[in-house]
């Protein structure tokens, strides 16, 4: 069910009616029913896989909890009879058992994810290699339909399981509650990837109707639809044209095209987040935020702390830290410290963890060499910056430059870098992505008129896009210090209703009349 559709609007109205009219005790059951209905709209046959994930995680978490509790209880009951050595043996035995349980369930669920997302990529690579050796054996691709949101719900649920393994979170006793945590519809297609402790406290508690929350949520939804329909969807056809025919356009036209893409993907993805966060807020639920004005970041590392925040946090918690602080890695760091000095000893463990995180992040986004290169490149830049930090600090101390000018330069530099890296996997293939880069730097044709600079753009559309983007920029600038929602609420109600009605009318005209291009959201493909 597309979020930009009449059926979704009716779905939301019905949900809100049931959520607020039914007894508060069953609010979470209302959410579960609507989540399952939403999921069934994407194909009932795929529901089987999400049920496997939810059920295996529920069972696994209970098992892990049980093993921990039993062991602790046994040690407590026999603390006077057991020697320190016996206690240590018992603890190690428990640890091994828990590791086995965790590994089995992770293997099952990440295995499912890998089959759906990566099986055909692996088959393709095997076929390429066999062709190199002139053998006639080719493996046929599998005709698989990727279950809706598998990347998101698998990561979220496995995060929960690891938290139970680490004893950071308690195991959820009710399988239906865990099913809701796994399938909660606002975040199933594009995240945010929530933490169990944070989300469960919101999902399973009773919420009282609050007009402020409801109004704020509605306004945020409208703003999200504005970003999606009036900016992202308006830009989409032009970006597609540039990506498909970059060889026919002047370098400067392609350059403008990639900046269009940067604006499009931000408006699309953050617009989606505004819609779902707004809808949740109307029900008194605060979803974790996924964006914090990312295009104002001063470095690539900072950008990734402010863009798709929940995915970054997931990788930081469950991959980066476990690798970076693992026994073998810290040992390696110590050895390097003795041999090569403090800087290598300090940076090497983090660099190894970063490479693993970024290659996995690339693969998570898609099974193509383009995404792997994209992930690797992001990782390499972050690692390079980390190693060069003393050099930057030295250079900055020598060059006398105003702090504000330096920051402005950093923001612009990061935005340009991010824009170039972003397009690499999006043009179709890694070769095409590199071809697009080459076109920008090698084709120096100077367009003589607007018609030759942007041959494909309708001037009226361009004007609307510029106005929309400027509005988005102004809001971002305001957000630096104030809450846009709170400021908006200070406007008299009549004027607020008028503004919102005007925006909604414009959006309906664009979505169903003028533009008629509103497609799915970009991050749904991941």
């Amino acid at each position, binding site marked *: 069910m597309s979020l930009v559709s009449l059926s979704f609007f009716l779905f939301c109205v019905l949900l809100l009616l049931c959520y607020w009219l039914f007894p508060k005790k069953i609010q979470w059951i209302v959410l579960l029913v609507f989540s399952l209905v939403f999921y069934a709209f994407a194909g009932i046959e795929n529901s089987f896989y999400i049920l496997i994930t939810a059920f295996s995680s529920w069972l696994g978490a209970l098992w892990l909890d049980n093993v921990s509790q039993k062991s602790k209880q046994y040690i407590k009951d026999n603390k006077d009879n057991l020697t320190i050595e016996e206690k240590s043996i018992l603890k190690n035995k428990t640890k091994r058992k828990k590791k086995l349980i965790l590994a089995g369930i992770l293997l099952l669920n990440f295995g499912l994810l890998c089959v759906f997302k990566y099986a055909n990529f692996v088959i393709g690579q095997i076929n390429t290699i066999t062709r190199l050796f002139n053998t006639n054996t080719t493996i046929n691709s599998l005709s698989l339909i990727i279950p809706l949101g598998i990347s998101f719900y698998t990561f979220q649920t496995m995060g929960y399981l690891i938290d139970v393994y680490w004893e950071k979170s308690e195991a959820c006793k009710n399988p239906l509650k865990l099913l809701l945590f796994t399938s909660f519809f606002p975040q199933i297609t594009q995240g945010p990837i929530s933490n169990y402790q944070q989300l469960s406290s919101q999902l399973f508690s009773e919420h009282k109707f609050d007009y402020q929350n409801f109004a704020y949520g509605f306004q945020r939804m409208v703003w999200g639809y504005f970003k999606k329909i009036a900016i992202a969807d308006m830009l989409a056809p032009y970006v597609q044209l540039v990506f498909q025919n970059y060889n026919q356009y002047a370098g400067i036209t392609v350059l403008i095209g990639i900046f269009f893409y940067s604006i499009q993907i931000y408006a699309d993805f953050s617009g989606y987040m505004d819609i779902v966060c707004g809808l949740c807020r109307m029900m008194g639920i605060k979803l974790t935020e996924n964006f914090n004005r990312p295009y104002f970041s001063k470095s690539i590392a900072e950008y990734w702390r402010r863009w798709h925040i929940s995915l970054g946090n997931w990788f930081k918690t469950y991959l980066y830290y476990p690798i970076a*602080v693992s026994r073998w890695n*810290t040992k390696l760091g110590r050895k390097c410290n003795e041999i090569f000095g403090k800087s290598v000893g300090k940076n090497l*463990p983090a660099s190894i963890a970063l490479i693993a995180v970024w290659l996995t992040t690339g693969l998570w986004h898609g099974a193509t060499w383009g995404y792997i290169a994209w992930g690797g490149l992001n990782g390499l830049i972050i690692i390079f910056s980390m190693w060069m930090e003393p050099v930057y600090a030295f250079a900055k101390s020598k060059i006398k430059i105003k702090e504000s000018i330096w920051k402005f330069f950093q923001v612009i530099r990061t935005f340009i870098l991010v824009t170039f890296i972003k397009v690499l996997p999006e043009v179709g293939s890694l070769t095409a992505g590199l071809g697009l880069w080459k076109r920008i730097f090698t084709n120096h044709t100077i367009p003589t008129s607007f018609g030759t600079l942007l041959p494909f753009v309708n001037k009226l559309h361009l004007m609307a896009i510029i106005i929309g983007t400027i509005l988005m920029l102004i809001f971002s600038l305001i957000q630096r210090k104030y809450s846009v929602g709170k400021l908006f609420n200070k406007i008299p109600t009549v004027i607020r209703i008028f503004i919102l009605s005007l925006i909604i009318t414009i959006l309906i005209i664009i979505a169903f009349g003028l533009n008629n291009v509103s497609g799915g959201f970009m991050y749904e493909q991941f």
Partner: protein
Amino acid sequence: MEKLMEILMEINPDIDYKTEKNLIDGKILDSFSIVNLVAQISETFDIEISPKYLIPKYFNSVDAMWEMIQAILDEE
């Protein structure tokens, strides 16, 4: 406690660790510093810091870190 203070001063001597209670939530220490800090604490106190401890709660202040070290020593 003194040993812990020495480690922290080595990582960033410009921070007033005695009064600072928001080292992580206030983004004063980043993830690179934490990795370095964990490696140094593990070596100095001969403990293994499991990823379960890598949350702001245990790294926001010197006292919190000290409590974490004691908890791990008790566990072991």
